[in-house]
């Protein structure tokens, strides 16, 4: 062992150096991907941040074929995840983002979206009018609707008919279908907001605000429903229907499309009304490829893209020409007219109740 003295400061300095050395190493390791991208990838790219299973991957590959621009898609699982991320970095690195309805309002309030230049979007005139000018983006200054889907009741046509499920009573009132259900139960959505507002639409036709007394009624409704619920799920509903474990599920219509060919299944939007989800496309404010983003949004809105996404995932395109060319029967099990009366019944969640109150309702339902 060396016996030469090393001064205190030399020792301290070298210790700090060692720590910094490791921290730099870790930093490089963590940001390896970004560094690689920065130095090595120089082609024209449009970055999309989207929900999974809504837009077909073919749309993006077609876009690349047509324009030569590469599309790089990253997926997120919940709107809140995207919003939390965007709140911090304003969506830097992304050019097109696809938030759901209520999230658009939050994003425009936080000034996270770029204004859209509709002159660059040739398919704008083809968008179905009832989807435009909604509460979350009046005048559609920031986003355009690209897909929509109604929520409702999916069922096995061999056990139940359309008449049996034309009202939410079938889902919320226990005795309604007892003989036909024959001891089997139903499945319900596992999301607090969606479950709450479906109950609220059934009782009060409201998807916005309820007073405390009304909230108690919805809470009781959901608690009573629990007795004949087999399972709370959205993704697993398909399996429950297919294996004949439940004859009735509460789902968005797109889930039926997957199993349509496997038997006779139907979907209905009950007469009291139901929820609807509108998937919109917008441009994050920190985007650096605004023109390319407009091009891509225009392409997503085109007729062919709409059809191919519907074929893959079942979300209904907003382009009028697209949905005259898709087979709605594969969603509803029968033909359905999309007229004003139909859209009048559909509500987009426009929640004005503080989230902790809804959480409290959900907790008490699930702990009962």
């Amino acid at each position: 062992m060396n016996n030469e003295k090393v001064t205190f400061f030399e020792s301290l300095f070298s210790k700090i150096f060692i720590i910094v050395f490791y921290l730099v190493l870790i930093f490089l390791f963590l940001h390896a991907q970004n560094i690689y991208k920065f130095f090595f990838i120089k082609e024209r790219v449009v970055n999309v941040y989207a929900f999974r299973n809504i837009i077909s991957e073919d749309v993006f590959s077609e876009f690349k074929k047509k324009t030569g621009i590469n599309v790089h898609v990253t997926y997120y699982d919940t709107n809140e995840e995207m919003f939390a991320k965007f709140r911090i970095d304003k969506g830097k690195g992304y050019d097109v983002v696809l938030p759901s309805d209520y999230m658009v309002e939050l994003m425009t309030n936080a000034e996270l979206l770029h204004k859209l230049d509709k002159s660059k979007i040739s398919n704008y005139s083809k968008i179905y009018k009832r989807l435009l000018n909604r509460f979350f983006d009046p005048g559609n200054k920031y986003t355009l609707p690209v897909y929509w889907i109604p929520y409702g009741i999916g069922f096995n046509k061999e056990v139940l008919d359309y008449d049996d499920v034309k009202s939410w009573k079938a889902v919320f009132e226990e005795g309604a279908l007892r003989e036909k259900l024959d001891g089997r139960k139903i499945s319900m959505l596992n999301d607090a907001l969606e479950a709450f507002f479906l109950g609220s639409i059934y009782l009060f036709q409201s998807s916005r605000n309820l007073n405390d007394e009304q909230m108690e009624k919805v809470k009781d409704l959901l608690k009573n429903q629990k007795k004949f619920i087999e399972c709370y799920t959205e993704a697993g509903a398909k399996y429950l229907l297919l294996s004949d474990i439940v004859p009735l599920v509460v789902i968005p219509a797109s889930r039926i499309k997957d199993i349509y060919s496997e038997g006779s299944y139907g979907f209905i939007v009950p007469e009291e009304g139901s929820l609807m989800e509108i998937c919109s496309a917008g441009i994050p404010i920190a985007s650096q490829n605004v023109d390319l983003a407009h091009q891509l949004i225009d392409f997503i809105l085109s007729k062919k893209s709409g059809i191919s996404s519907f074929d893959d995932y079942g979300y209904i395109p907003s382009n009028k020409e697209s949905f005259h060319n898709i087979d709605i029967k594969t969603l509803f099990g029968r033909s359905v007219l999309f007229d004003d009366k139909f859209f009048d019944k559909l509500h987009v969640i426009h929640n004005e109740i503080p989230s902790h109150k809804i959480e409290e309702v959900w907790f008490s339902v699930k702990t009962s």
Partner: protein
Amino acid sequence: MNFVKRIFARETPFFLVCPALIWQFLFLYIPLLVLFVDSFFRYSNKIKSFYFTFLNYQKILQPSSLKIFLNSFFLAFETTVICLLVAYPLAYFLVFKSKKFRMFLLLLLILPSWTSIIIQIYAWFFLLKKGSILSQSLYNMGFISEPFHMLNNHFAMIVGMVYCYLPFMALPIYASLENIDRKLIEASADLGASRFITLSKIILPLSAYGILAGISLVFIPAFGEFAIPELLGGSKKLFWGNVIVGKFLDYRDWNSGSAFVYSGVLLPVIFLFLIYYVIKSINKFRFKC
């Protein structure tokens, strides 16, 4: 250069120790500390920033939130009790009754604990679902009127929990039983004690710490379990783990989520300390007699 070499030789221990310590502090302690601090803040849309408050913890004291802790507690408790009742005789058999196959049986006991929990869950999912061989055979043998779906209820959930946690209870008990000095048992027999008395007065107390270890290994993870209630129990009840998942992954509400995490981490620890003191005082009482 000589200077550098000199310093490096002297600082080698530090150089070696650093990665582990940095790793531990940077990736474990500091994030947990930040989360702890976070649990005392909330975001306000009005003032567009965070403010200090105890509200996150106050909300947890509401009946609906407390019930969630109770749910998790009872689930963990039920699982632990059943595991204990099954594991103790099992371990006892291995230690005292099996000579030839002991190593083999021990190995068989260890193996399941080293498999992925999701596969263990799938195993019971496959066995209990409607079209499974179990329901089909029960139907064929006439025990049930028609093949039915045995999932999405409390029974399926408990079966899954016990299945996943049994080895963790059995192994520590095995280890502590094995460590008991045989001479004590022989002495007890020589003094004329019956099997039952030997069991209750000698073997059981001496294996108490093994039982405690087993209980800790089962109770704490079982308290935080969310996958089994969701997949085998049909998401019909909310547990502490589910809420954490919801708050951190779905709703991104980390402030109240952290409060939930820290209040939930305390509960099983307190419970375990209680059991530890109970065992300690029983032992003290015993030695006084």
